[in-house]
């Protein structure tokens, strides 16, 4: 037999870190379009209040429910406020909550996952069992409970969701961390005397980073839907603060009485942004899967 195969050096080297732009391009046209939408939404979230043509909180009841016109592109809502301005201003609270949820979940989830994967053994069993048990609490239920205890509000609801979603994130990342842990280059680094912390931070985490990013993106969409629902229920962001979920609730009457635009517009805003996050997240999962070992 010919011995033409070279020594598997590839196994010994950690993966190359690809550029952000490169990864984005790898997600295909759908992924890039979604990224654009997300970028636009983020822009509106940050600058919404500034670019809004009118004061989102100033309402004139005599103008309530009026339809679109030249000066007010989307018309007015139930309280006579300019709908477009309110939509633009509402982006901030609609996206801030999910950001908080994702930040905590990814941070805590990654830490727990890497810790459990690294140490293995008893610690891993304890952490995994603990996570499985907490898993039993549906996120929205925990948020309602939190609202009952601490009063309605975005922060309480976001924290509750973060607590409820962390076990799921940790479980997904733990699998990837375990696979990474078993790679030969990790053993090589250990033998060289590199500290565990350094290996985890400088090697393991960056190598599972594509998966983390994909998970974070999908999670953002999911959290956004749930937080919007909680605000719709009146247990999250409180009216009269602008928020897309709240706006659906505020303008629900319009559906029944023939002026559905305000409620539908707010709903559409949520759907568009969440679709973008879902599509991008799915594409990122594909890229992570393909680029991995």
């Amino acid at each position: 037999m010919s011995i033409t195969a070279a020594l598997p050096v590839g196994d010994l080297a950690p993966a190359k870190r690809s550029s952000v732009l490169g990864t984005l391009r790898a997600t295909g046209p759908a992924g890039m379009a979604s990224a654009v939408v997300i970028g636009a939404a983020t822009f509106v979230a940050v600058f919404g209040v500034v670019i809004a043509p009118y004061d989102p909180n100033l309402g004139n009841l005599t103008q309530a429910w009026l339809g679109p016109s030249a000066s007010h592109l989307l018309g007015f809502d139930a309280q006579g406020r300019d709908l477009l301005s309110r939509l633009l201003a509402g982006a901030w609270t609609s996206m801030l909550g999910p950001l908080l949820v994702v930040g905590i979940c990814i941070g805590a989830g990654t830490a727990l996952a890497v810790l459990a994967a690294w140490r293995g053994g008893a610690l891993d069993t304890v952490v995994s069992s603990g996570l499985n048990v907490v898993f039993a609490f549906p996120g929205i239920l925990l948020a309602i409970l939190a609202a009952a205890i601490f009063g309605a509000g975005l922060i309480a609801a976001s924290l509750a969701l973060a607590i409820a979603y962390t076990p799921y994130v940790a479980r997904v990342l733990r699998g990837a961390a375990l696979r990474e842990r078993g790679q030969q280059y990790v053993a090589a680094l250990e033998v060289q005397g590199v500290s565990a912390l350094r290996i985890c931070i400088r090697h393991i985490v960056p190598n599972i980073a594509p998966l983390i990013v994909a998970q974070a993106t999908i999670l953002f969409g999911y959290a956004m839907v749930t937080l919007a629902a909680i605000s719709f229920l009146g247990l999250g962001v409180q009216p009269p603060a602008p928020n897309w979920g709240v706006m659906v609730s505020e303008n629900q009457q319009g559906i029944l009485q023939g002026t559905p635009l305000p409620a539908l517009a707010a709903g559409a805003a949520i759907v568009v942004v969440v679709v973008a996050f879902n599509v991008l997240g799915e594409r990122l999962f594909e890229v992570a899967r393909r680029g991995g070992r």
Partner: protein
Amino acid sequence: MLVASLLVASFVIFGAVYLAPGNVISALGGGRSLPASSVKVLEARYHLNAPFLAQYWYWLTNALHGNLGISITLRENVSTLIASRIWTTAGLVLYASILILLFGIGLGVVSGLRPGLFDTGTLVVSAVSAAIPAFVAAIVLIFLFAVKLTWFPAVGNGTDLLDNVRHFTLPAIALAISSLAVVARVTRAAVREESQREHVQTARSRGIPPRQLIRRHILRNAAIPVTTISGITVASLIAVAAVVEVAFGLNGLGAYLVQSAQDKDLAVVQGISLVLVTAFVVVNVLVDVLYAVIDPRVTLGARAQ
């Protein structure tokens, strides 16, 4: 695992009261000022002078006996209040589950087996539907089918069984729509992947006819991940039903939970939370059992891995 989950969940529900700002009495009273006699009643009922864990024990044993305390606002037994509403929620969840399983899995199987226009269409539609929150679906459905085309009523429970079904159709669809999309996508992916597997090639090389190939080798194997995702989605319906109930004015547990949360009627919140979490855990356990039955390679409890 089942028991442990329930214990921890019940502990959280119970202990949450103590996290509330102010002392326990004020929390239980929902921030209202109470006459001294009421305070005494609360102290006795909740054993507030006993150590913490003992209080938990009393509360838990009471709960297991069906005694969930008394609503501060309505002054009735929480159990009674729950019992009168539980069938609404159960019916809604059941209706939505049937829709999800029937259409979600159905669409997924058809588009998984048949690449082409139908498949692409399903992918696009499901990508959008998966992002539609239940309450947005609710208002769109109300707008289209209750207001524009008056096929269905917009709010309320309805009177007899048939009328109930009419009233529950739009809410069930609203509840089901995003989960349906997710189940369809996962089913499609599972069927696709299973079709490419080597054991399907083996069967084909032996001359097994295509229909049987699909039924016994592709679908049967794809049933494993499909069961998992279906179980997860159905379980999640239990919690999300609250949103739909509020949107459609249905008199269910979820709507009542939200109401009580706003009123800070903690006994009710605790009671309903306990019921919902229990249902959630039970459904998950059932899915675990089903999973172990379908896949002979796994033993019970392995789904968690």
